[in-house]
């Protein structure tokens, strides 16, 4: 039976065609269309166009705040560090402290306390135009201590700062007193971090609400940095505008910077290829292969401050015996792991990363199975011993699966009859067990909290700090004493000497097999200049130095 197509369906079809037409009519215009030249919230002066807008795409799922007193995630520190300034900093490529808001400072001893005196730069002013005063500094540091969120321990524990010991001597001078057992060198390094950034008291105080201004600072900025906050769309993007009143002598070329949250590597790759993004972060090994041949894109390798290591529990057999720990270090094929990383990591066998004071650059271990076998025998570890080896699911820094690195180590030990039993756990679950000192052997990574060797030496060597040495049940008086002594020393040359001793001691006695320092790869469009990544600097990317042709 042949049925005529009824009119009602013809109308349906017509509607359908109309929808399709509407879709195709608006679609082609969208991606190629230039950005609306002037939008609400655009900075005064030069109009914002795509040409002076920088789009930076990265996985920024970790951003939870834009308040400098609270921010402690990679994603959050990038915008915060570009909106707020600290008294001093390590600018890109510098290992010595440079003045920012403070034009000079000195450290002296006063009784059993250290006195740190900072003289502020009289030209320094906030984006509002008001000058940066000692009163603002005291307010900002006291606020960070009171608010007591993730990064506050840097001020209260590491610097041992208390509110009573921060004082505005006059409008341009700040005095900070810290106890004699604290380290002024470490404290100065800590003061380069965003938690010590200066917020404008007059702007924040009226908006304190019941959370000390944290939620207000999530949608407004009150800093003196080269950028100001335009808006933060949670989980989507943070938009910064150039600060038209910036006092620091440079005018940011990028009038607007959009930090785009893009968790998927494939999407980031597409964004840089199409030019939808100017810079992308975290290019994985597979993407490197594709992007390398692209004439419009350059790849920038940036060494992180992370260290990836295997660790054992020094109170559980067989690794309660130092010889067994040393045997493990001789059993691992380090070259193999570096090869796996495909150029995304540098061999580092010590607890202080490349780029830090005290890094020795010595890599004494090379796979020597005979020696490893001998040392295991000396420690009384029989062939066929089974050791549980816990690793996280997912990717390790450097872009290789944790399980792949574990398998490589497992194969090394299998050659001398030691059976590593790989057990995979979700990172948070692994961390819970590690903190509870429950894991006989594991793979992990560590990044220092502040750009000073103490940020690694204390966690790795000092059991009393209840950090890594504690998690691995390694209570070694000599390592503890050395780490304390090195932190307290103020003479840089003597510090280097002390850290060299500590590094060597931990290298040969500690519960760690230090493996590598990963690099992070950025892809940058060819017309972008001035992109520098410096892990010691806060922020690690100085957006105001970037230009576009």
């Amino acid at each position, binding site marked *: 039976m042949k*049925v*005529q*197509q*009824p009119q*009602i*369906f013809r109308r*349906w*079809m017509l*509607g*359908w065609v109309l*929808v399709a037409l509407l*879709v*195709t009519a*608006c*679609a*082609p*215009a*969208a*991606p190629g*269309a230039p*950005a*609306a030249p002037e939008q*609400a*919230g655009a900075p005064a002066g030069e109009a914002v166009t*795509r040409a002076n*807008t920088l*789009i930076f795409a990265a996985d920024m799922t970790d951003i*939870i*705040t834009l308040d400098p007193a609270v921010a402690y995630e990679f994603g959050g520190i990038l915008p915060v560090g570009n909106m707020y300034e600290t008294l001093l900093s390590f600018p890109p490529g510098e290992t010595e402290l440079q003045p920012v808001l403070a034009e000079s400072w000195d450290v002296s001893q006063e009784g059993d306390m250290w006195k740190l005196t900072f003289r502020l730069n009289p030209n320094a002013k906030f984006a509002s135009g008001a000058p940066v005063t000692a009163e603002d500094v005291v307010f900002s540091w006291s606020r960070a201590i009171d608010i*007591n969120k*993730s990064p506050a*321990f840097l001020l209260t524990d590491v610097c041992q700062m208390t509110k009573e010991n921060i004082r505005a001597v006059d409008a341009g001078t700040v005095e900070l007193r810290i106890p004699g057992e604290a380290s002024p060198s470490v404290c100065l390094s800590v003061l380069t971090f965003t938690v010590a950034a200066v917020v404008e008291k007059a702007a924040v105080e009226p908006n304190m609400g019941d959370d000390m201004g944290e939620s207000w600072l999530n949608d407004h900025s009150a800093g003196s940095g080269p950028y100001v906050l335009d*808006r933060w*769309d*949670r*989980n*989507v993007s943070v938009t910064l505008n150039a600060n038209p009143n910036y006092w620091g002598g440079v005018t940011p070329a990028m009038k607007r910077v959009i930090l*785009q949250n*893009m*968790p*998927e590597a*494939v*999407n980031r790759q*597409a*964004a840089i290829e*199409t030019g*939808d993004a100017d810079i992308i972060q975290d290019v994985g090994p597979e993407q490197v292969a594709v992007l390398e041949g692209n004439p419009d894109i350059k790849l920038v390798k940036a060494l992180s401050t992370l260290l990836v290591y295997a660790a054992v529990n020094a109170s559980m057999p067989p690794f309660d015996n130092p010889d067994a720990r040393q045997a493990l270090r001789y059993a691992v094929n380090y070259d193999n792991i570096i090869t796996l990383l495909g150029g995304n990591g540098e061999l580092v066998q010590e607890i202080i990363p490349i780029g830090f004071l005290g890094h020795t650059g010595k890599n004494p271990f090379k796979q020597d199975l005979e020696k490893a076998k001998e040392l295991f025998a000396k420690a009384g570890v029989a062939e066929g011993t089974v050791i549980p080896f816990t690793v996280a699911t997912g990717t390790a820094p450097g872009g290789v699966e944790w399980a792949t690195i574990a398998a490589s180590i497992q194969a090394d030990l299998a050659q001398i009859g030691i059976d590593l039993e790989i057990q995979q756990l*979700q*990172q*948070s*679950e692994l*961390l*819970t067990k590690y*903190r509870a000192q429950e894991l006989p052997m594991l793979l*992990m*990574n*560590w*990044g220092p909290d502040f750009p000073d060797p103490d940020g690694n030496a204390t966690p790795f060597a000092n059991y009393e*700090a*209840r950090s890594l040495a504690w998690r691995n049940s390694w209570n070694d008086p000599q390592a503890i004493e050395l780490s304390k002594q090195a932190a307290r020393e103020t003479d840089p040359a003597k510090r280097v000497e002390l850290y060299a001793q500590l590094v060597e001691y931990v290298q040969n006695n500690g519960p760690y097999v230090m493996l590598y320092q990963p690099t992070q790869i950025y892809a940058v469009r060819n017309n972008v200049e001035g992109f520098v990544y410096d892990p010691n600097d806060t922020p690690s990317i100085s957006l105001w130095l970037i230009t576009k042709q």
Partner: protein
Amino acid sequence: MTRFILRRLGGLVFVLFGVSIMTFFLAQIVPADPVAAALGTNAREAQIEAYRRQLGLDQPVVVQYVRYMGRLLQGDLGASIRTRRPVADDLRDFLPATVELTLAAMLVTILVGIPLGVVAALRRNTWIDAAARILALIGGAMPIFYVGLLLLGVFYRQLRWLPGPGRLDSTLQPPTTLTGLYTVDALLTGNWPVFTDALAHLVLPAITLGLYSTAVLLRMTRSSMLEMLGQDFVRTARAKGLSQRLVIGRHVFKNALPPILTILGVIFGSLLSGAVLTETIFNWPGIGRYATTSVTTLDYPAVMGVALVAAVIYPLVNTLVDIGYSVIDPRVRTN
């Protein structure tokens, strides 16, 4: 009708109670510490202790549950452990994105699935029927992530006809929030450039998400229509000399509608859960992605927030479907 709706809403309370109990106690079984996960590798033991106390996680599980329910009854979903924001604020930010995507996918499903199913049934065994069946086969067989990547590869990266992932071009500012649906808000505020851009951004994810359900609806419509076309009353209607339009529109289609409506209710639920993957592929800032992040960081107040929202939406849609029945089928009304 009012009693029917009230009874449905009463049932909803039990569903919510069950969901809250289940998610809460499932979170307790996971052998990991959400606080340690939120504060990261470097956090000191003292910090973790302090935050745990602050959240009340040092209390016995039952006490925690009673406190949680107490707050929930006052409409407070609690604060996310990871972001420290009220979960309600997070949901308010992310839910509209998912709703917009789901509605768009629903639109694709209905606009393509029903007409194509009807035409395929009326033109049985012609090329158009064959094409419809091939579409149903492809739509039913291709996994969402593959469709998404394929569409992005072709229409965004190669042809550049449509924009890439995200809800809006990053250089555009979202429209003033009224409903949270960008297309609707842009239209209401007369923001034409944002409307076209948001609409263009919706096309690929809506097709990706809607493809499978389009296939399901197409098959259902086709078979339901075929069944009705063979019924005696259709022959009678034709014999009465009714126009083709009236026969198909009033007799065949209307009677073929109940099973289609049922399947639409089910489809809406599956679209919501399918949105998780589509949101990941298309960098869509909805509750699917929020749920994924929350689950991997063991942020159980957030997970519970999402679960409760889903638990409300699903029965709500089913109630709407039931109401829809009574509109099209008088027998349901009298019962």
